């Protein structure tokens, strides 16, 4: 039962894969930045005292986190136009991933916010800072440092979710890989190279996050 690996076909289309990877990274970058903003707002709502803000935030997080992202992707792309919101497929995927990652990042940030000692906020109040100044100068910088390790793994798994954009024909890495499969049927080789690209990218992301962590580490 011999199957001989032959990568020639993969290398011929390697630039397609690289192009796909680049798009994956762009999708992830834009979506995760928006997602982080959503997550931050939600996190403040989750830890803030007022139930008026907390309840909807909780609902958002619970519902979104328990849905397969594929369903969300199909919803944004196919149902929103029927409700009058028409986005092209890249914008619609980015929006979906942003909304989805918002729910995950909200949880990460919430834990980070809770780990900022209350005394520091009070010290900020005591020198006359407003609550907003305390958030931007004290709470967020410290929260970011606290969450970096878990942020890193969340960002990596959200990056991997860009592979699902293939379902609405966004030509990112997985889409290109499947396209090459249909053309050459060198499925095993294509997936080996593709996963190597994903693993390498995630390793680089992780290393970058560790570098950021070291960079922001407080002198002891």
């Amino acid at each position: 039962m011999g199957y001989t690996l032959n990568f020639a076909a993969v290398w011929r289309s390697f630039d397609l894969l690289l192009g796909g990877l680049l798009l994956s990274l762009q999708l992830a970058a834009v979506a995760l930045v928006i997602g982080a903003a959503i997550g931050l707002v939600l996190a403040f709502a989750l830890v803030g005292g007022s139930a008026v803000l907390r309840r909807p935030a909780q609902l958002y997080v619970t519902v979104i986190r328990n849905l397969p992202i594929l369903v969300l992707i199909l919803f944004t792309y196919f149902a929103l136009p029927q409700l009058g919101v028409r986005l092209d497929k890249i914008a619609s995927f980015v929006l979906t991933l942003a909304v989805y990652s918002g729910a995950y990042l909200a949880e990460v940030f919430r834990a980070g916010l809770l780990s900022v000692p209350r005394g520091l906020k009070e010290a900020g109040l005591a020198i006359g800072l407003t609550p907003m100044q305390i958030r931007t100068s004290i709470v967020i910088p410290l929260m970011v440092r606290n969450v970096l390790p878990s942020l890193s793994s969340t960002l990596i798994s959200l990056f991997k979710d860009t592979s699902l954009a293939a379902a609405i024909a966004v030509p990112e890495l997985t889409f290109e890989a499947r396209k090459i499969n249909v053309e050459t049927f060198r499925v095993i080789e294509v997936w080996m190279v593709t996963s190597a690209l994903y693993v390498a990218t995630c390793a680089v992301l992780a290393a970058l996050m560790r570098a950021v962590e070291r960079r922001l580490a407080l002198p002891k």
Partner: protein
Amino acid sequence: MHDLLTNDLLMFANELWIARLALLKGLGVTVSISLLSILAGSVAGVGLGLGLVYGNRLLRLLLRGYTDIVRGTPVLVLVLASYYIFSTVGLDLGPFQAGVLALAVFCSSHVGEILRGALQALPAGQTEAAKAIGLTFGQTFASVLWPQALRQILPTWVNTAAEMVKASTLLSVIGVAELLLRTQEIISRNFMSLEFYFFAGFLYFLINFGIERLGKFVERKTAVPS
């Protein structure tokens, strides 16, 4: 307008009734995939976590490599790899087996990492106090470290379980007739995409919400009074 809506709803209800058995079977397959892969993945993950913490240098290095590669690969790619790569070496797994294997591997890497974190977070004083009353390492692990680590990993483990349920959708790609493929089959017959995708989404939400509740319940039950 109003009639149209009722009409659509009636049509959907009718199609739903026709498809009930197929959906139920799909749900059953999704649940079995999830249970099997969570079970196998957790057992393997516990071994992995132990190796990552207490193994010698070489073992730790190997396991770290395994964990990082698995965690860096999209699950879809793992699923396809498991289905095809084993047949090149003559081990012919069916799509269900191959899919469960891929998910279990994915699950194990997560459980391994979680357990490693939990074990390393336990204060060294716990091990020392156990040693001081004469417990061997095995006894220390079984009576002191494991019960504490277990309580700590429970919430994250529940999250991983929910992830596995969601990841089971990817087995549709290699032809396992789980809930999403069943849904797609139904849609390819009656072309009611939105309705049935959302119904599937709703079912997934129910499963995961159930898992979340169950996790909270077990957490409360095993909480240590303080």
